[in-house]
């Protein structure tokens, strides 16, 4: 069933809320009253419900089936967490209510901070970053602030990052005023330590390395990398997008990391919600801790307190980088994440990491019969394939991925990381049962065989079992239509 836009269904006088009549008596708007039509149609409540329910049915979701998106970690979203987040004491709490009225909220932030510090082995955490990329910004800002405190901000302007890095890494470094340089990878899919060392120098602010990296591999030389960077006077930013592979098993703090953001929506399963909201608390080493952003929570005389300004941070012996967002961060995600952590416990967090790695290796082991792994050996929590197995079939990575839709699956991550040709990155997560994985592998093996058997047309046509066939993204970008425009009323001129 096709569903029109609300703008095509509703009318300006219809509404789906009942409100008492305004008095109409007072007007203190200074003559700035809205006097033109806004252009917002309303729908009655039943129409609204149906509109959005119908739209929802055009989506794929983790509650429907596997979401094997490498680097994006779509795992089960427990509904307990939704319930907790909606407790009035959390959901209906104002960020500027007096401290005496929000002690439980500050306690929760403090508790979550404790878990994050303990799981990472780091001494401090900045809670306010609103998403992973915001956490990266926070971490790189801390590095910049530390360099400033050392008087080296002017000289240390280069940041190194592997070619395989997430695009946010270079973008963040630039947003902090750094320039970015690639670190080459080695043939095992990891950072080339020797090449890295060559690039180090006293103009290097630091490095940004993802670990486990975006090829789904653990950086074996991680400590040597950290040491080399530290020896050169730089800092080590670790992109924590893949922390879920090692949480409860390995503490990044034991590996020489100076800053790392944690995607609560990946590792700790706050719902992706179709593209957000995320949350990116960032753990900091002793060296960077003093530069943490405001606001943050302290505990004194049996009470939680908020440090809200740079000046207050100074009184608390800090050199805060300032403020990253209006309030205290993504509280709604904090409640969900802590609920998730308490539910798992340290044993469950560890088991989840182990199961995630086990599931990925199982998929790797089963699929390598027909598909081509990008690198030798075991993987961590995601299995990376290249498109060699599609060579001469006429089927490309995108076709293979879109064909998965017709099998009932969301495509894997494709063409990332960039260092692998026609990359296909599969992350099953710990949420999939062996039964689901077997069905999934069977489907992919069958697709691979069909591709090799020459069924290229079917692949090019895919998907056919979806609300839409392939969409013309080029046309969308060439002449962007970003909003609905009312049709010119044809009779208006008459």
């Amino acid at each position, binding site marked *: 069933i096709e569903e029109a836009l609300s*703008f095509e269904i509703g009318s300006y006088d219809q509404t789906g809320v009942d409100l008492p009549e305004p008095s109409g008596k007072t007007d203190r708007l200074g003559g700035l009253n809205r006097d033109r039509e806004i252009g917002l149609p309303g729908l009655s409540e039943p129409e609204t419900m149906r509109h959005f329910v119908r739209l929802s049915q055009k989506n794929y979701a983790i509650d429907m089936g596997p979401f094997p998106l490498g680097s994006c970690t779509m795992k089960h979203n427990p509904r307990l967490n939704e319930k907790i987040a909606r407790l009035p004491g959390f959901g209906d709490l104002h960020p500027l209510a007096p401290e005496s009225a929000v002690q439980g909220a500050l306690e929760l932030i403090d508790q979550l901070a404790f878990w994050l510090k303990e799981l990472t082995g780091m001494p401090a955490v900045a809670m306010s970053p609103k998403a992973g*990329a915001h956490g990266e910004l926070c971490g790189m800002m801390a590095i910049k602030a530390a360099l400033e405190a050392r008087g080296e901000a002017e000289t240390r302007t280069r940041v190194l990052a592997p070619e395989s890095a997430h695009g946010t*890494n270079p973008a963040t470094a630039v947003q902090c005023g750094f320039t970015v340089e690639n670190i080459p990878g080695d043939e095992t899919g990891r950072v080339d330590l020797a090449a890295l060392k060559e690039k180090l120098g006293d103009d290097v602010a630091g490095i940004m390395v993802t670990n486990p990296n975006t090829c789904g591999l653990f950086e074996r030389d991680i400590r040597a990398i950290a040491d080399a960077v530290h020896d050169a006077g730089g800092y080590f930013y670790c992109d924590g997008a893949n922390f879920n592979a090692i949480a409860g098993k390995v503490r990044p703090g034991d590996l020489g990391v100076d800053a790392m953001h944690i995607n609560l929506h990946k590792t700790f399963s706050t719902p992706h*919600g179709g593209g957000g909201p995320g949350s990116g608390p960032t753990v900091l080493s002793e060296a960077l801790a003093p530069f943490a952003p405001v606001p943050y929570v302290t505990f004194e005389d049996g009470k939680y307190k908020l440090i809200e300004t740079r000046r207050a941070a100074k009184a608390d012996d800090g050199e805060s980088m*300032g403020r990253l967002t209006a309030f205290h961060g993504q509280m709604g995600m904090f*409640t969900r994440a802590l609920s998730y952590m308490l539910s798992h416990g340290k044993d469950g967090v560890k088991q989840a990491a182990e199961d995630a790695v086990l599931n990925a290796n199982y998929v790797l082991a089963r699929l390598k019969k027909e598909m081509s792994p990008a690198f030798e050996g075991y993987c961590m929590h995601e299995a990376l394939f290249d498109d060699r197995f599609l060579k001469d079939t006429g089927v490309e990575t995108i076709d293979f991925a879109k064909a998965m839709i017709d099998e009932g699956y969301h495509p894997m991550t494709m063409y990332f990381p960039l260092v692998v040709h026609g990359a296909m990155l599969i992350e099953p997560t710990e949420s999939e049962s062996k039964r689901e994985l077997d069905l999934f592998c069977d489907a992919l093996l069958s697709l691979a065989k069909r591709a090799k058997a020459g069924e290229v047309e079917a692949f090019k046509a895919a998907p056919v079992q979806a609300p839409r066939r392939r969409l013309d993204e080029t046309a969308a970008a060439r002449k962007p239509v970003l*909003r609905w425009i009312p049709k010119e009323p044809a009779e208006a001129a008459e």
Partner: protein
Amino acid sequence: MRYLPLNDADRKAMLGVIGAKDIDDLFSDVPADALNAKFDLPDHQGELEVERTLGRMAAKNRAADAGPFFVGCGAYKHHIPATVDHIIQRSEFLTAYTPYQPEIAQGTLQYLFEFQTQVAALTGMEVANASMYDGSTGCGEAALMARRVAKRNKTILSGGLHPHYGAVTRTNLELVGGKVVQAAMDVDASEDLIDQIDDDTACVIVQTPDVFGNVRDLSGIADAAHEKGALLIAVVTEVVSLGALKSPGEMGADIVVGEGQSIGNGLNFGGPYVGLFATRQKYMRQMPGRLCGETVDAEGKRGFVLTLSTREQHIRRDKATSNICTNSGLCTLAFTAHMTLLGEAGLRKLAALNHDAACKTADALGAIDGVKIVNKNYFNEFTLALPKNAEEVVEQLAGEGVLAGVPGGRLWPDSKDAENLIIVAATECVTDADINVFAAKLREVL
């Protein structure tokens, strides 16, 4: 553990298929002494236990609904229809990924398109993006965008801008060596920023209603900015006001950023919220954040996709317009659904009710000896000048069960002038009884 489908038999069988002797075999790249670290954390717990622990924490907080409530300053207590929460809890929305595979994400994409249209209409602008983290980070991004557009270095912040927005924007600008001019605290909207605008000015950032609640006419400053080749960024932290007030677009703004929390989203102690970001068509390609656009599929059917990703970090990497790679998806949905319920008629009525409530509250409080209403014009928020320290008054009233507003000292801790101010918001959720209690208690503590 209830969330983990594998059992030990599965694990053993799978290790066999993999050819690994045990699970740690798969972790052999990890330095041995770092593997299987010990943690000072509890083991897993059942739902009942977790609910008890977190329920106890929640009970230590005072929910907005628990009594007379007048706190605003960038986050507002509004009533959210139950339909909205039902919609955002739909599995297909809640547990969906970013719509990078548009064939199976038309649900998300279509509501983003509707959202963009709503935001453009509300702000009086031509285009809007698919949302920012929140209003304050949107403000920071707008300042960066204005620098890109104007290719200039200076940013002027109004003295009526929410101090947190100012702080975030400063943080963003200083990182890239931007020059920031912060105007003095401007309680009654009497500042004149026009003199500050020069040939190096990228933009002026003005909020309306401002942080003290004053409704501001932006036309003058817009004209002045444009004359000097600078942009005007308008900030709106209470989006409900747009149901009663001229849009910033009508008054000449070039970029409008707003906090959309009031529509569809709970207070949530400050987040997640939903940043609104709209601008003129000509600046479209300089906009940060995600954009959803219309297109057709292979059969010619209308469909929607994320578009103009050539501005974005995952394509452009160090050349991107911003490092942002998330929008506030589900909050956007809440906004869109609530706005669809309201429609033009509902939003206007809601705005009128808010204005009514604020006027009533102001009349009741302004009648108290020694209390002065600072504002001449306001929408649903205004500022009281008290004869004594406002922070203490707010604490005393909180003790009496009244959350009275935000004391000036909280937002301007360094300003003597702010000490006796209290910023009071009143929405459709405020009853006459609430107002009476507030007035009576305030009279008592003064």
